[in-house]
């Protein structure tokens, strides 16, 4: 098995074995496959047809669906964890998606690229151009990231909604870094939140 994407590795290491997990935006199921091997009951939602058939082809319970519209049917607290990795910034209504996540899962992992990362700021402030970085590799006109946010934006966002940050991890590339000045220095963040 190839190495997990860094934010997924953080999540995989902190999901309790045997937990019930819903991975929203699960791609081809790489995280789900690892969780399954640790005894988790993992389910997934993915928008891309090719990814879905690849995931189902490897025996994972994945449905083709959209985080914006297909979460409403899950019962309250149906999962120990709801996971939204690199998907929040692609949602049409990120606030509603997060609310659904908090309803469906007892806890939620949310990971996203930090738009206040210094390289991004540099690109915008000095280059005057929308950033294209390893974490944000696609040009403005074709990016799926329609709701860019920063680490501080997320912190304020959950605080306003009475959601508690239980734990947070900050990454640059695959390297973990401390919380100090994370909003400037971290390329990615992973939050574990609950209400």
């Amino acid at each position, binding site marked *: 098995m190839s190495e997990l994407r860094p934010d997924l590795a953080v999540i995989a290491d902190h999901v309790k074995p045997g937990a019930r997990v819903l991975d929203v935006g699960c791609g081809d199921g790489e995280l789900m496959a690892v969780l399954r091997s640790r005894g988790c009951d993992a389910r997934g939602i993915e928008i891309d047809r090719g990814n879905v058939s690849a995931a*189902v*082809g490897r025996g994972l319970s994945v449905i083709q669906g959209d985080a914006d519209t297909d979460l409403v049917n899950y019962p309250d607290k149906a999962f120990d964890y709801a996971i939204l990795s690199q998907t929040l910034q692609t949602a049409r209504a990120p606030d509603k998606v997060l609310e659904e996540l908090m309803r469906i899962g007892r806890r939620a992992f949310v990971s996203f690229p930090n738009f206040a990362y210094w390289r991004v700021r540099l690109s915008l402030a000095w280059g005057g151009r929308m950033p294209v970085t390893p974490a944000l590799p696609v040009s403005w006109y074709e990016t799926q990231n329609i709701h860019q946010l920063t680490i501080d934006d997320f912190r304020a966002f959950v605080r306003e909604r009475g959601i508690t940050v239980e734990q947070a991890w900050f990454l640059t590339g695959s390297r973990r870094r401390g919380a100090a000045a994370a909003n400037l220095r971290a390329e990615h963040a992973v939050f574990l939140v609950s209400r």
Partner: protein
Amino acid sequence: MSDDSRFGLARSVTLPGPLALDGGARLSPVSIAYETYGTLDAAGTNAILICHALTGDQHVASTHPITGKPGWWTRMVGSGKPIDPARHFIICANVLGSCLGSSGPASIDPATGTPYAMRFPVITIRDMVRAQAMLLDHLGVRMLAAVVGGSMGGMQVLQWAATYPERVLSAVVIASAARHSAQNIAFHEVGRQAIMADPRWRNGDYYAEGDPPASGLAVARMAAHITYLSEAGLTEKFGRRLQARDAKSFGFDADFQIESYLRHQGISFVDRFDANSYLYITRAMDYFDLAEEHGGLLANAFAGSKRTRFCLVSFDTDWLYPTAESRAIVHALNAAGAPVSFVELSSPFGHDAFLLDVPELNRVVDGFLRAGESR
């Protein structure tokens, strides 16, 4: 097991019944024609039931006795295929109401000694499934590793999961729906009226004359066949091309290739299918509404299915059982907490895609079934 006459190709059994039907009648005896492939393992864990569509039959992977054509699902069932006799014990039975050996309107009514014709009781999808359960009891198959079907076969799979959840570990529902829409019913009614408008139908009593309503049945098949294909597929295959001529005839001969093709579909169908069976089975499909049986809430149908894994597949060009129908089932399964996989595959073939060459379908079904076997 090989010398057990219950197993193998072209089998048939007549069970005493009675089978209590949804319509209130009791059917007795109940004949079921079926085939089995492969061998049931000692623990009884490798049985797969395949449910056929409206005009399908038990010859899922064996030569059809009338047409001489290969089985209708050899792309899915066979050596090296997702459903493989080397690994699985495969059962496929002709549905109740059909005409390839199972009890239907052409069967002899023991009360009169003549064919039932329209005196055969109206049946439902659930009645078909109950008859299959009787067959499995006869075969000594308690658990099904999987129930698999497309179109009307998918309806039976859903009905299996709802009616006998404790017997079904995995359910594969392809290009199907949990209820028949007004449009579905409308197309079926056109077919039935075509049959009944044929003077040879004789209110269903045509068996003694040996002169069935072939014209009406052929028209029914022609109309239905259009619904199995996509507009884009028809355009690509036929367009406006003329049939073996250089110019329009200014008459009503089959000028266009599509006309000739449809006429051929209609004419060849009547050789292998009974018109009354077509009436009864389309009626059963029209009556199908799984939510209605469960207080109007589809999720309730799956309340007992928490152990059953589901896999649903739809096709983007299928306008007869569109993706929205599969998605409604997925949402109900999510609400019921059942494990479910779902994908809409891309294919130019319309509803018929489930029978045709769609490699992604095989990959999805194979992965899903194997994951169930490794549990």
